[in-house]
């Protein structure tokens, strides 16, 4: 039987749940603004010098102990996710830095039109905020995370100078670009939170090892354990690792009072707080809110609208790959930070679907990765194996499609009736089907990506029409809006039901746009923190 300790005498101003991309940003801002902030994080600090990219077993580690799929990784700090009813497997990392430990750090922004999809295209809903309202927070986030890239992209509004020049394109990147240029289609070097020169605290330049998905040994890839967290701690914030939150607690009036959690020794604890910020990601946050039932909140916390856990959006991800006749050492350079194309980003109804997609260019890794498939089918075993492997090694490139998934209420995160984590807390269960609009987008993108690869000189083109292991962008499950009947939080991320509860992760997205979401998640987190600083000094003890 676990003992129960109570830490009521140590009430904090703000309790943040989750130390990932959004939790790091919000904590740092609030701590630097004089709030007494504590963060509870179920995972632990990572030591970059121990990342698997320097291990002789790295190819095995990448698929097991460092796999982005928590169901495969199965560390103590991970929680299982029932994804049986989803063609997309969610991927994430649980620790200080959250999923930014494993991310690619490809960091485009939303377009202005992404905030106005109802007005422009008659679908989903407009956001209650505009691109312009978020712009200063995008800039601020770029500065803290450190952005490499270059201004002048004709597919995007002008923006402030990037902190560092772009990542070199490489011979392989230029090859792929030649296909876009032959067709007269847009491309632009990717904005990436990857250092191309030393930037930030003790962070070196990328040395092109290629393995972003196992953490960055060089500290060149920005993750919040290296960027926001040092600032947060200097600002006086505290973080407790190995602290798994069971539920957010409330008083008789329904206001949040803190959280019950299990500490790293397995002891039940309670932390009192005058306000709570959820930053546990688009799956972890609805899971916790649904686990936080009480007399005042019988359907879960902040759930009067019934929309907690609904409208789950991924970015449906197709991958089209081809092999080039020449050897280009495609393992040199970050895997997915070359360039992108937004030729088909904005709606053109003549295509038969609304909204659009981004192409993100991908290179490939070493022989074991290639043999096991990488972004495509595994190299066949038996006769012909060696010939096929040699054909792909050093010359395989791919184009990833990030399509805009529109919100649909039947795509959900709820609680599994049986599955639990190692502490017995009900685990999340997904129900997700791909909409016709999303499928049509992907099909359109596949046809055009084939054209690009062919124009660039590739052959043996292989299509994965929807990658299963591609649930890296988790959005929409506690959406933002002005109307409490059709949204969970207001435009500041504040719960409509509970005035001292905020959400800052991808759950609050109204729509998902067709770009990687994290700069937008972090900009929103900074904006919410800024709002609290300006308007909620009452949280200070």
């Amino acid at each position, binding site marked *: 039987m676990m003992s129960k300790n109570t830490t009521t005498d140590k009430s904090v101003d703000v309790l943040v749940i989750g130390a990932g991309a959004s939790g790091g940003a919000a904590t740092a801002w609030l701590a630097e603004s004089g709030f007494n902030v504590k963060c509870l994080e179920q995972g632990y600090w990572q030591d970059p010098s121990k990342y698997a*990219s*320097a*291990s*002789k*077993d*790295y*190819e*095995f*580690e990448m*698929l*097991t*102990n460092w796999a982005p799929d928590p169901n495969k990784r*199965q560390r103590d700090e991970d929680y299982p996710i029932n994804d049986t009813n989803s063609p997309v497997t969610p991927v994430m990392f649980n620790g200080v830095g959250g999923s930014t430990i494993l991310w690619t750090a490809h960091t485009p922004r939303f377009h*202005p*039109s992404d*905030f106005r999809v109802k007005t*422009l295209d008659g679908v989903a809903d407009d956001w209650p905020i505009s*691109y312009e309202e978020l712009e200063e927070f995008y800039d601020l986030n770029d500065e803290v995370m450190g952005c490499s890239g*270059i201004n*002048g992209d*004709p*597919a995007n*509004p002008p923006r402030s100078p990037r902190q560092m*020049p*772009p*990542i*070199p394109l490489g*011979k392989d990147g*230029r090859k792929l670009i030649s296909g876009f*240029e032959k067709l007269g289609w*847009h*491309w*632009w070097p990717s904005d990436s939170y990857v250092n191309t020169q030393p930037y930030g605290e003790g962070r070196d330049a*990328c*040395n*092109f*090892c*290629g*393995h972003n998905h196992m953490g960055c*040994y*060089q500290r060149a890839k920005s993750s919040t354990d290296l960027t926001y967290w040092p600032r947060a701690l200097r600002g006086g914030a505290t973080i407790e690792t190995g602290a798994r939150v069971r539920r957010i607690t409330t008083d008789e009036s329904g206001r949040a009072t803190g959280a019950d959690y299990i500490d790293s020794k397995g002891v039940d604890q309670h932390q009192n707080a005058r306000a709570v910020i959820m930053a546990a990601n688009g799956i972890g946050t609805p899971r916790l809110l649904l686990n936080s039932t009480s007399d005042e909140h019988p359907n879960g916390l902040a759930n009067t609208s019934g929309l907690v856990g609904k409208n789950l959006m991924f970015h449906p991800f197709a991958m089209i790959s081809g092999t080039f006749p020449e050897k280009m050492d495609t*393992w*040199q*350079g970050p895997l997915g930070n070359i360039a992108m194309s937004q030729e088909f*980003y*904005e*709606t053109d109804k003549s295509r038969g679907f609304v909204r659009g997609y981004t192409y993100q260019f991908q290179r490939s890794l*070493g*022989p*074991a990765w290639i*043999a*096991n498939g990488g972004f495509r089918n*595994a*190299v066949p*075993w*038996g*006769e012909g*194996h060696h010939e096929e492997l*040699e054909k792909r*090694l050093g010359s395989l490139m791919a184009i990833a499609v990030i399509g805009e998934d529109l919100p649909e209420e039947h795509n959900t995160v709820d609680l599994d009736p049986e599955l639990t984590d190692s502490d017995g807390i009900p685990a999340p269960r997904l129900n997700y089907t791909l909409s016709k609009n999303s499928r049509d987008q992907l099909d359109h993108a596949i046809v055009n990506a084939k054209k690009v690869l062919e124009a660039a000189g590739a052959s043996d083109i292989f299509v994965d029409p929807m990658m299963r292991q591609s649930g890296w962008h988790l959005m929409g499950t506690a959406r933002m809006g002005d109307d409490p009947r059709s949204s969970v939080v207001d435009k500041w991320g504040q719960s409509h039901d509970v005035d001292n509860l905020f959400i800052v992760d991808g759950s609050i997205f109204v729509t998902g746009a067709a770009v990687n979401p994290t700069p937008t998640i972090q900009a929103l987190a900074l904006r919410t923190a800024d709002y609290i600083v300006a308007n909620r000094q009452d949280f200070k003890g």
Partner: protein
Amino acid sequence: MITNSAKTQIDEPLLTSMLDRLIPPVGDLPGAGQMGLIDEIVRLSGQQTRFQEIFETAVKTFYNKNQDFISQSESQQDEAIRQFESTNQDMFDSVLTISYIVYYKDERVHKRLGWSGKTPQPDGNKMEPWNESVLDKIRTRKPFWRQVD
């Protein structure tokens, strides 16, 4: 950790024959089975409990269904493997995955492929520097993002 018990779970002659069919000889290299990779396969699979369990179950299941595998002809062996692949996909994948990983970790294979074989870090790789002239063409394109009031 290599445990004796892990190794005794695995029928070595059978796995050797299977590896030879999965990754056949090439150039002056014998098939993967004859290269003596089993100790490394057992060690590596033991680095994660979940993986080790699937892998060991896979080898046992295959053995139970194909006790005469070693004495079969190559085409019969290929057929038995194909049968296993189609009926026990996850288990088969674990065998293939670890076989590929261990084979492509081997220095003899690196030499044949001309692959450096070094871990990605700490040395990383070299790339030619960023060259802005690649933007000459695309910079001539007018802005085309959708304006919003």
